[in-house]
């Protein structure tokens, strides 16, 4: 895969560079899919260990079920994103060799990361992955806002990596090796486990997008080309979740505060993510905030699973972890679908601003309907896949109540309230996104001149929509999909009959009801057509309550649609409004503009960075730009190291 990317960079011709990168990616994905699927089927793969000339590091890979499960989204989304990207980038003048090189590099790194079995190796791949994605985000590097976004991402990612460096240093120090197996076998004190856990939450949380560490998501996703946003949002941020799960496995039996931390982070991220999404006008920025929301849902699921392990309640373990893991896969599917859709909209209209769009469903039918499926799925509505994973987590909550201990009941209240609120707000947000962009009348020239997207742009979207429906309608089978990684997580064999969860049976009923829902809807539609004058149709303008000259500008806008809710959450959002007031009976001119900057960025990180900048600015003198001086630094450092090292012997 990497070879393909490497050659792609060298080759001058645009189509050839794509083909060779494509060949590499598909061949690589195919080769990797064999062990991944066999691992998920329960067969074992031997770990690969190759000696490496780096102290503490070995070239060590191990594919267990947890890794295999997290490889699935990469396997599905990467090839689709590449096919999509080919058409998406077709009109670019730039040489795309570099782009495809980094694309393949990113995909390959995500695989390698999941299967690496050594701390140092993990960190290095993590870093390469970050850099590859940074260069992918910086595709339009001549634009100022893209460079800005790239910087935000790079800085945020490295603050996270710093925490991870510390994390693995402590782990390696305790275990005497960075090999994951040795780390898992070693013992830690309760204090160091606590420190390690919070370091992991911080370090991996930056990548995953936990609030308030999410600030890079709403910057980087809109700046990147859409297939890159899809790959990053759908797959790459899940490496953060994978990291947290891996560390949980390595640390051994968890304690209650870990579960609660994850649940609370999940609730805060979930609600904050969706509330900020509501206030956005930029379609891709809106989707980026929804990634924060969905990561929150995943964190709630994982936290529930952890608490289940602590309290020894099997149903919480299975349903919590199961729901979290399934949501990882589901989110990869529908979020990539939505980013593809947003990309298609940008492509055919040239704008991401929701307020300028409208009426696109008539012009771009397939884009619209697939976007609708994605919207319903991400809002957790039946009969799509989002409902299934959310149902797992809901059900974990109410199953916990049966034990009648105070902890599970409080947990259930947290889960039910936050998921219901998130669900309701997500419906609000996606009815806005779909309704304003695709329905009604075009709000600008750009929208009225739109046309359907390219076939190869639509193909990946159709495949993903199909998968969203499939998971919804084959819900019981998903349980078999999440059980193998679950076993790796909890460390002992889990079977479906392991407890009286009965979730398999319930999922079967739900699936049947989904089918019934579709049958009923079709039946009612057919009955409606069979009515005496059921097919008789006439058309007229929209009923506008007697007004004579309606224009498209009189339609409800995205901002006004979201206004009641953003008003309600104003203390959290801090939406700024600019504009002149309307004066007099016949106002000649008025304008209004509102924007919602990220609260965490404005209120938390900007002051911190300003402070840090002030503190370290005296050190600027050291960076004088004189090459001789730098060489002197190196020499001095080496001498000091030598003296220090020899001083011990």
């Amino acid at each position, binding site marked *: 895969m990497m070879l393909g990317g490497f050659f792609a960079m060298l080759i001058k011709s645009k189509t050839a560079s794509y083909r060779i990168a494509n060949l590499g990616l598909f061949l690589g994905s195919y080769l990797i899919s064999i062990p991944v699927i066999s691992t998920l089927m329960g067969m074992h793969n031997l770990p690969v260990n190759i000696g490496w000339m780096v102290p503490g590091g070995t070239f060590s890979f191990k594919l267990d079920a947890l890794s295999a499960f997290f490889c699935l989204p990469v396997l599905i989304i990467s090839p689709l994103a590449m096919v999509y990207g080919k058409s998406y980038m077709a009109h670019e003048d730039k040489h795309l060799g570099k782009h495809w090189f980094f694309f393949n590099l990113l995909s390959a790194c995500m695989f390698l990361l999941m299967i690496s079995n050594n701390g140092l190796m993990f960190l290095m791949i993590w870093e390469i992955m970050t850099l590859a994605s940074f260069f992918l985000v910086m595709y339009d590097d001549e634009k100022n806002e893209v460079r800005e976004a790239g910087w935000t991402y790079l800085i945020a990612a490295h603050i996270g990596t710093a925490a991870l460096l510390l994390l693995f240093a402590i782990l390696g120090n305790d275990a005497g090796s960075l090999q994951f197996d040795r780390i898992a076998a070693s013992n830690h004190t309760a204090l160091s486990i606590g420190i390690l856990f919070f370091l992991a939450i911080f370090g991996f949380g930056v990548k995953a997008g936990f609030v308030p560490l999410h600030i890079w998501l709403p910057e980087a996703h809109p700046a990147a080309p859409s297939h890159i946003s899809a790959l990053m949002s759908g797959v790459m941020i899940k490496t953060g979740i994978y990291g947290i799960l891996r560390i949980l496995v390595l640390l051994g039996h968890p304690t209650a505060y870990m579960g609660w931390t994850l649940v609370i982070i999940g609730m805060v991220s979930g609600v904050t993510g969706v509330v900020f999404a509501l206030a956005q006008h930029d379609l891709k920025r809106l989707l980026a905030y929804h990634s924060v929301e969905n990561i929150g849902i995943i964190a709630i699921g994982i936290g529930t699973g952890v608490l289940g392990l602590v309290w020894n309640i099997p149903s919480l373990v299975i349903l919590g972890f199961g729901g979290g893991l399934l949501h990882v896969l589901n989110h990869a599917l529908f979020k990539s679908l939505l980013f593809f859709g947003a990309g298609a909209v940008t492509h055919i209209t040239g704008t991401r601003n929701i307020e300028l769009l409208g009426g696109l469903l008539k012009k771009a039918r397939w884009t619209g309907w697939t976007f609708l499926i994605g919207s319903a799925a991400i809002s957790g509505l039946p009969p799509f896949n989002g409902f299934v994973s959310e149902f797992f987590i809901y059900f974990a909550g109410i*199953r916990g109540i049966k034990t009648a201990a105070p902890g599970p009941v*409080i947990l259930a209240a947290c889960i039910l309230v936050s998921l219901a609120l998130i669900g309701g707000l997500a419906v609000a947000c996606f009815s806005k996104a779909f309704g304003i962009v695709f*329905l009604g009348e075009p709000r600008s020239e750009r929208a009225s001149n739109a046309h359907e997207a390219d076939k190869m742009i639509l193909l990946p979207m159709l495949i993903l929509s199909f998968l969203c429906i499939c998971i919804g309608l084959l819900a019981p089978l998903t349980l078999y999909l999440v059980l193998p990684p679950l076993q790796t997580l909890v460390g002992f064999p889990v079977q479906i009959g392991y407890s009286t969860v009965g979730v398999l049976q319930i999922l079967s009923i739900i699936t049947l009801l989904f089918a019934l829902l579709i049958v009923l809807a079709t039946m009612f539609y057919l009955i409606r057509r069979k009515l005496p004058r059921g097919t008789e*149709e006439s058309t007229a303008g929209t009923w506008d309550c007697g007004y004579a000259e309606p224009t498209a500008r009189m339609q*409800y806008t995205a901002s006004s649609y979201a206004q009641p809710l953003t008003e309600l959450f104003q203390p959290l959002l801090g939406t700024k409004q600019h504009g002149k007031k309307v004066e007099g009976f016949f106002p000649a001119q008025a304008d209004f503009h509102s924007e919602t900057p990220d609260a965490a960025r404005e209120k938390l990180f900007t002051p911190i960075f300003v402070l840090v900048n002030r503190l370290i600015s005296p050190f600027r003198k050291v960076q004088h730009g004189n090459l001789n001086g730098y060489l002197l630094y190196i020499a001095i450092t080496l001498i000091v190291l030598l003296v220090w090292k020899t001083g011990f012997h």
Partner: protein
Amino acid sequence: MNIYSWIFPLSALMLSPLMPGIINRVKAIVAGRHGAPLLQLYFDLYKLLRKGSVYSTSTTMIIRFAPSVIIACLVLATMILPWGGMPAPISFSGDFILLIYLLGLARFTTVLAALDTGSAFEGMGASREVQFAALAEPSLMLGFLVLILHTGSLGLSEISSGINVADWQTSAPVLIMVSFAWFFILLTENSRIPVDDPNTHLELTMIHEVMVLDYSGPDFAFIQYAAALKLWIFGGLLVNLVVPLRLESLGLQSLIFISGMFIISLLVGLTESLMARLRLVNISKILIGSATLSLIALMVKLVGYYQ
């Protein structure tokens, strides 16, 4: 699964248009008028079903599919709704989550169809609908949580058969709080006064009615019927909670349930007659208040549990 239990969804399909009739009659009587016949909605539906339809030039297939999808969601929801102690034909643990999400799908479809017309009025209604629903859902969920804790069951049918007269004697405060919270949710979800005024078509106070301005003929019949079914479902949830009589006989139990539904309609009618519509900004406060009420009920329940 009892074959007789299919009587419940079937009766719901037949009887639900009666509820708006009763409400309107009560309102008329309180206002000193005679009022429309009880069966008015049946007549309306019959008339509308025989008509052709007019669609706006702005619309797409969304508004054409919407009525069928909405009605399918609600019909499926009636199959989950138990009648007092009698279990529903379809019942499983956690079925109330599906119920809430089916209503969510119906709402999503209604809202999209409203936006499909491109009308500013309908956009306004849609915007309010999603706002109030997002606030009502947590409150509804909390209510269920209290009842799960109270009865120890996870399915709607089991929960409802688990509530009996003895429960109302021992833990009335908790149940009353949930009932009040749910009554307010019923008013919100069905767009009744004090949240929305179902009678005003052309004022800017509306939520549900304004979203369906552009339907005509059979589509409008479907929408009206779906609204009646929704009222029936929320009424049913409330009746199962506040009428704790649990009888062995199917006939008697059904009779009690249906009378319960009529009493709920009466209460809604009286509320509509005696109250004015609230300002929109105050509705969210009351919804959050209703969620708080459920939360207090949960706390009371929890404290009582561990004493």
